[in-house]
């Protein structure tokens, strides 16, 4: 136990047993998968058409945003080159499906259906459509275990999108509550502020939305403000997630030019 806690020596054993546990996780997911398949088979034509229209509208809006984004990205790269700093390339992503949630209700973890054979590695960041979800803590051959940002043992570095104030965002063990640690009384944080990842922790990619501040409590007796935040990702409703690889630095390329 001590070995496992303090070192990586028993990882191969864990990995080997992972070959047996993976099918069990897949099997345990089967009732849910069959239920989803059955309900997707029983959708009415009108519903499908409505869905399609909604999606087309959404694509239109998103495409318009992408057009702007391309210009902004190019501009950003140029500005960074002017400043002689490194630019981050688009990170490669991998889609995965959640096939199991942690049976122990006191831990916020889930199991996804991609493992090292698909290129997943320990420490990889996991997102959904809304924002950061968590990170891979244990990569088996065909499955991987993801620790959510809401787990009580998880914390990451974030900054306020509005003004760049940095703080540490820690999980609370409840699926929709996060806390900002050690925020001084005078910090410029208000309700509704979007918190994005800073990348300073060398683990999460920079600039992804993480949470939204929902409540501040100034306690005259306490040295720090109590700041509560809600994750922007749908932590307990997500069924598909994205795994993002570590951002590739473009420094050398910039140096050649």
């Amino acid at each position, binding site marked *: *136990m001590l*070995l496992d*806690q303090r070192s990586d020596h028993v990882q191969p054993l864990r990995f080997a047993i992972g070959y047996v546990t993976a099918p069990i996780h897949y099997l*345990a997911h089967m009732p849910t998968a069959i239920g989803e398949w059955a309900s997707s088979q029983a959708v009415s034509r009108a519903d499908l058409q409505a869905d399609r229209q909604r999606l087309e509208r959404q694509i239109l809006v998103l495409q318009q945003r992408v057009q702007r984004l391309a210009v902004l990205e190019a501009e950003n790269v140029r500005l960074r080159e002017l400043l002689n700093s490194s630019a981050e390339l688009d990170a490669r992503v991998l889609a995965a499906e959640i096939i199991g949630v942690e049976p122990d209700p006191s831990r916020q973890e889930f199991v996804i259906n991609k493992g090292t054979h698909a290129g997943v590695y320990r420490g990889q960041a996991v997102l959904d459509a809304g924002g950061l979800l968590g990170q891979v803590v244990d990569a088996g051959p065909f499955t991987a275990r993801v620790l959510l940002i809401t787990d009580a043992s998880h914390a990451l570095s974030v900054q306020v999108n509005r003004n760049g104030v940095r703080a540490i965002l820690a999980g609370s063990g409840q699926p929709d509550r996060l806390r900002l640690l050690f925020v001084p009384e005078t910090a410029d944080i208000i309700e509704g502020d979007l918190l994005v990842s800073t990348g300073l922790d060398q683990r999460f990619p920079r600039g992804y939305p993480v949470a939204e501040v929902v409540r501040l409590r100034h306690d005259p007796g306490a040295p720090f403000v109590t700041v509560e935040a809600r994750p922007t990702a749908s932590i307990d409703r997500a069924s598909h997630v994205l795994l993002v690889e570590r951002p590739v630095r473009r420094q050398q390329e910039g140096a050649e030019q």
Partner: protein
Amino acid sequence: MRMRERDQQGTAAIVGTFLVAAWLTVLPLPETVEFGRPLWLALALIYWVIALPHRIGVLWGFAVGLFQDVLTGVVLGQHAVALAVVAYVSLAAHKRIRVFPPLQQSVVVFMLTGTGALIAYTVQSAVGRVLVPPVWVLLPALVSALIWRPTFGVLRWVRRRFMVR
């Protein structure tokens, strides 16, 4: 040679029951009943130790526990130690447990699974990952005791069907 072959009969059936128990351990459940999920692997282990004390013992308990550790993603050795202790105690008392009336047997199962759960809880708190008070840990043990008789029936049917000795 013949004897030895017969001795080894049915290992696949035993492993099969453990795999089914593992499946039940990670099967998604509604959150309200999540706290009362029976300790299926411990139940299966207790049954096989009592039924085949000459074959299933502490080592099996340790191996099954290690498997459960990887399955549930906790620190390696947590369930391994717990189930090894459970296997040892049931091994020591298997003759008595066999002749107990059903109700008393369930009480013993409650104590065994409760011991296992508390050991696992102790390890978990030593590692520093505990949020629920220990009373909640004993709820699964209670459910396991209630479900012991049906489980016992099913596993006995498996043992007779596949002639595991």
